């Protein structure tokens, strides 16, 4: 299968120190790829380089172009939810979504807007000012904004960070639904239970490098551990020592 995104040897340095040091990433259609690792491992920087938000000091990223003679702008088929929850404070959830659709060059009908909000569990909050939404609702609005143009890949940077268990569960279900609709999801997380439940593939990043990659089952089997939580601790300890 041809990947939608193929990043090779990505490097990012700050002050001479490589925070990303030769990372390869492939993203395939419809898959859920979890990028895990300790704080400062280079996960978000890697995603931001793929998204073009940060320039890379080395390596390359090849994007799906829509065919041999086509040059589709990857910005049109990639959706992004950053760690911040970007929205316009004075606007309602529905108005925000409309603006984000315009950013991606898509004109959404009222029906599609409602469907999108409903899919993210925000139907009743459609006319609430975005700034007044709860933390979980704001995250879901940010995810809805990343999906409003029906992208081929959605990048979710710590979508469940600082959420309560119920909100985390809702986001997990949402990621599954997105994936079932054919959109690939790349997300970063520190919650190994969540990763185990939703990810098709896992990439453990530490010290700016990929330390392990594979399906959750293959990784736990290869490292002789019971679950991803144990694997995370084992790899993190190996990294420190």
């Amino acid at each position, binding site marked *: 299968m041809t990947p939608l995104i193929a990043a090779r040897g990505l490097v990012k340095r700050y002050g001479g120190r490589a925070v990303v040091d030769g990372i390869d990433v492939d993203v395939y259609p419809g898959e859920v790829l979890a990028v895990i690792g300790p704080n400062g491992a280079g996960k978000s920087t890697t995603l931001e380089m793929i*998204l*073009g*938000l940060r320039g890379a000091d080395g390596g390359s990223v090849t994007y799906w172009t829509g065919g041999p003679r086509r040059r589709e*702008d990857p*910005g*049109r088929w*990639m959706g*992004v939810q*950053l*760690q*911040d*929850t*970007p*929205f*316009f*404070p*004075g*606007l309602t959830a529905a*108005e*925000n979504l*409309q*603006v*984000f*659709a*315009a*950013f*991606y*060059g898509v*004109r959404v009908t009222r029906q599609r807007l409602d469907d999108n909000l409903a899919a993210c569990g925000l139907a009743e909050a459609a006319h609430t000012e975005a700034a007044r939404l709860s933390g979980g609702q704001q995250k879901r609005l940010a995810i809805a*904004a990343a999906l409003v143009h029906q992208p081929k890949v959605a990048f979710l940077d710590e979508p469940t960070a600082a959420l309560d268990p119920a909100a985390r569960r809702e986001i997990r279900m949402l990621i599954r639904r997105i994936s079932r609709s054919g959109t690939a999801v790349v997300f970063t997380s520190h919650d190994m239970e969540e990763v185990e439940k939703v990810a098709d593939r896992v990439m453990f990043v530490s010290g700016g490098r990929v330390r392990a990659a594979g399906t959750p089952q293959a990784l736990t089997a290869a490292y002789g551990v019971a679950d991803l939580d144990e694997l995370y601790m084992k790899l993190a300890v190996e990294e420190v020592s």
Partner: protein
Amino acid sequence: MVVTFRALLAGALRDRISLFWSVAVPLLLLLVLGSLFPEPAYRRNLVLGLVAFGSLSFAMSGTGFEVMRQRGRGVYKLLRATPFPVAGFVGLLAGARGLITLVGAMLVAGVGSAVHGIDWTPGGILLALPVLAAGTACFTCLGFVLGNLGDNENQVAMYNNLFLLPQMFGSEMFYSLDGAPGWVAAVRRWLPAGRFIDALRAAAGGDGAALVPSLLVLLAMTVLILGLAAATFRWDPGDRRHLPALRRA
């Protein structure tokens, strides 16, 4: 573009604090100061000074806080990941806030003229329009600089005082500076609000020739401040604060 402009316009119209300072406060001051000092010449200058105060409040202070909030929320960072041109977005934001500033200025001018019996000739109104537009553009650019310098509400509030207070008290907004020391008059010439008020007074008097020098200086200041706004622009709060583009060069 239309959807984005409409949304930014709606957001700006819901910016109650900016509207309070740019419309409600000038209208209140018009009534209070106009009643306390009934001389026609003072009232005339007061109306024009309050038009400048309202414009400065919405276009500069309001834009400054809005830019800081949007950057802090990660809107600019996210924009870079979309096909939407950031320059276009900034233009639409400036346009939306500029339009409301213009309408607010006309409202204050209209009410002030009606209450204090100031007659505007059709020629004077025509001359005032480019002055209002130039002032709005200049103050909006100042607002971007303000928003670029501050990382949070407190910092922007501090920089706002630094930008606003000298222009409030050094530009003849509320009183004449005829008796002030020479250095005050010299400083006044370098304040955008001072030039704006001079041009507005010339326009109100229907004196096109007197308007031109102040308008040209105001436009030159606008270009300079626009350059400063572009040089200090930051995509996200983590970027370097001061003149990142110039430093890279």
